[in-house]
């Protein structure tokens, strides 16, 4: 069914409801965008001034002229891509192991991994910080990437996906003489690409937006990620006297994510709809 015919099949009340929902969702984003093009002094007098001109690019010029912003952007890209690749590699292997291999304490270990879903990041932040301090990994890319690799969700997600693939495929490959590693690499892994894409997008988004761990691990400004760097560049009273600049920072930080969303829109929508594992 095409998108057009689906839309044609939607009832008027549903269409109105969806439109209202979309407006409610989009309004803060549009407001943020408009604020980012306004002079901060004018907004201090009246934030409603965002809905009328004149508009200016000064806030964006100030961001781009900042001496460190491209360094922070590079750091974010390296950390997000590094984390995403690491998570995909580890979770695929772990998922395959839990789904296909029989080893002692497999079920107990899987339950143990799932327990990780219930533990918030803040609960382990102190020992994690101490560990990385002992290893001398703060203010380094490994220090920013490694904690993000321990993802229970990814292991669970990939395990379920591997379980959904018929085991007859493995058996056929092995009958043809393929080793377990070759079966994994050439037969099963290509079949998990939709799941990999979904997990990759989620991991990238989470890593890009991560703030708490980079804040306390990357304490040197040349190792800041974009989220931490932009926060550090705010003046103390940014929400009052620098609102336009603050909003421009928010828009600027979201541009790479927007690009990722546009490229991987199909996978994200699938994942949200819960169809990626089928």
């Amino acid at each position, binding site marked *: 069914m095409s998108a057009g015919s689906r839309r044609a099949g939607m009832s008027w009340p549903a269409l109105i409801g969806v439109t209202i929902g979309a407006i409610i969702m989009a309004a803060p984003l549009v407001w943020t965008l408009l604020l980012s093009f306004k002079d901060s002094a004018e907004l*201090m007098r009246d934030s409603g001034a965002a809905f009328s001109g004149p508009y200016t690019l000064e806030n964006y010029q100030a961001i781009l002229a900042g001496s460190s912003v491209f360094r922070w952007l590079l750091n974010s890209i390296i950390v997000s891509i590094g984390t995403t690749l690491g998570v995909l590699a580890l979770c695929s292997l772990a998922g395959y192991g839990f789904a296909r291999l029989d080893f002692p304490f497999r079920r107990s270990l899987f339950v143990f991994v799932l327990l990780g879903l219930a533990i918030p990041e803040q609960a382990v932040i102190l020992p994690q*910080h101490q560990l990385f301090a002992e290893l001398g990994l703060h203010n380094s890319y490994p220090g920013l990437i490694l904690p993000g690799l321990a993802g229970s969700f990814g292991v669970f997600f990939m395990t379920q996906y591997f379980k959904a693939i018929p085991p007859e495929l493995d058996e056929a490959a092995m009958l043809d003489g393929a080793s377990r590693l070759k079966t994994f690499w050439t037969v099963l892994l290509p079949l998990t690409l939709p799941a990999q894409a979904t997990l990759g997008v989620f991991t990238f988004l989470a890593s890009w937006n991560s703030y708490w761990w980079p804040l*306390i691990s990357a304490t040197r400004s040349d190792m800041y990620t974009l989220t931490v760097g932009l926060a550090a*560049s*705010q*003046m*103390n*009273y940014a929400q*009052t006297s620098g609102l336009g600049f603050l909003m421009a920072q928010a828009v600027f930080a979201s541009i790479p994510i927007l690009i990722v969303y546009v490229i991987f829109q199909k996978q994200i929508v699938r994942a949200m709809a819960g169809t990626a594992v089928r």
Partner: protein
Amino acid sequence: MKRLAALLALLAFGCSPAGGKDEIYVQRFFGECDAQYGQVVDLARAEGECGIVTALFNRFEAEHQDVAIDVNVVAWPGYAQLAAQMAAKDPPDLVTMHQGVISDYVARGLLEPMDDILREAQIDPADFTTASRRGVTKEGRIYGLPWDTIGGLFHINTRLFAQAGLMRGGKPILPRSPAELLAHARQFKRATGKPYLVQSQVNDPATHVRNFYTYMLAQGAAIFPDANHVELQTPEARRVVELFRTIEREGLTTRNQDNPAAIASFLNGDGGIFPTGTWMIGSFEQEAATPGRPLYGGYAVFPYPRLWGEPTPFVDGHSWVMPKRDRSPAQRRALVRLIRFMADHNYDWSRTGHLPAFRQIVESEQFRSLPHRRDIAPLAETGALLPGYVRRQGAIEGLIGEELQAAISGQKPIDGALADAERRVNELLAQTT
């Protein structure tokens, strides 16, 4: 072989972060504005907290070619990062810290006393203003170079005050008792149709607490009788909260505004007095100098008026502190020079609106000739901080502010809110000690 040796020597020298200079690692908040001020060394050309502090470090490096400063700008207020750096045993050499926060770090032995280094820098703590000296003195020792005094002020729309008949000799008439404040507020509302106070009350515990501490201290109340307890179920506390509850109930204040909304209200002439901090003087003065704006030619600012007992406005301040860490003698010498330089340029910092930390500057004509500074100068001497033994002041401010907001808005009875505030703070202090 010679080429290889030369290359190695070049690499060794070139890769040295400070290029052979003594390097100091400084960490600060106040934002990053290198784009605008990264090359500015003329302090008169710098404006605002970020601009002035950036230009100061530029100037220091220009005047001290043998010292390199690695300045790390942290997200406000930077204490999460500092705690992490201390845990990782890699704190900065010098770092900005609110004076109200110093106790937390001193209690855990994380800061170096600075008596000796100040002596080496030929800075006499007797030259500090009373408020500044109190702010950096903990357990009888000095733990920071005070940098300013920040506190609440009454920012006043004198045009509306004139309309309400509350001006005399070109100056606003401020109340001298709670009853007089209410009488002025009613008179103001009758004459102008606008509220006497513009207040930031939503998501702003600091505002409530600033008012509360100021008038508790004025009555001589021992808010924190010791390090482990707060006393809020007292007649003094009740009097203060009842005053602000009455103001709220009679509509003598703006309602349901957060800080940006309150600032906009004041700038647009929607009320008479905006009790907020020293940091807003620059913005309001700019509006007062802009023809056509409601504040044009009609802005004045004074310390909180004395309503009870003694004038003891609650204040805080920024300071430069030295976390404990190993330093070479050369680094220490460089730090001494930097601290001396910062003290020598305390006037430049006071252009932000904050009060200087040195008595000589407060009394100087140079400072007093800045807009409104003559009127607010007393704050540097009368300003009071909480006792040095009180820890977790930021968290306590959040708890008390929440309960005060509930009491003043009428969501909770005053006695109940004060009891809850006392219980919650005491629970927090019990966990802390």
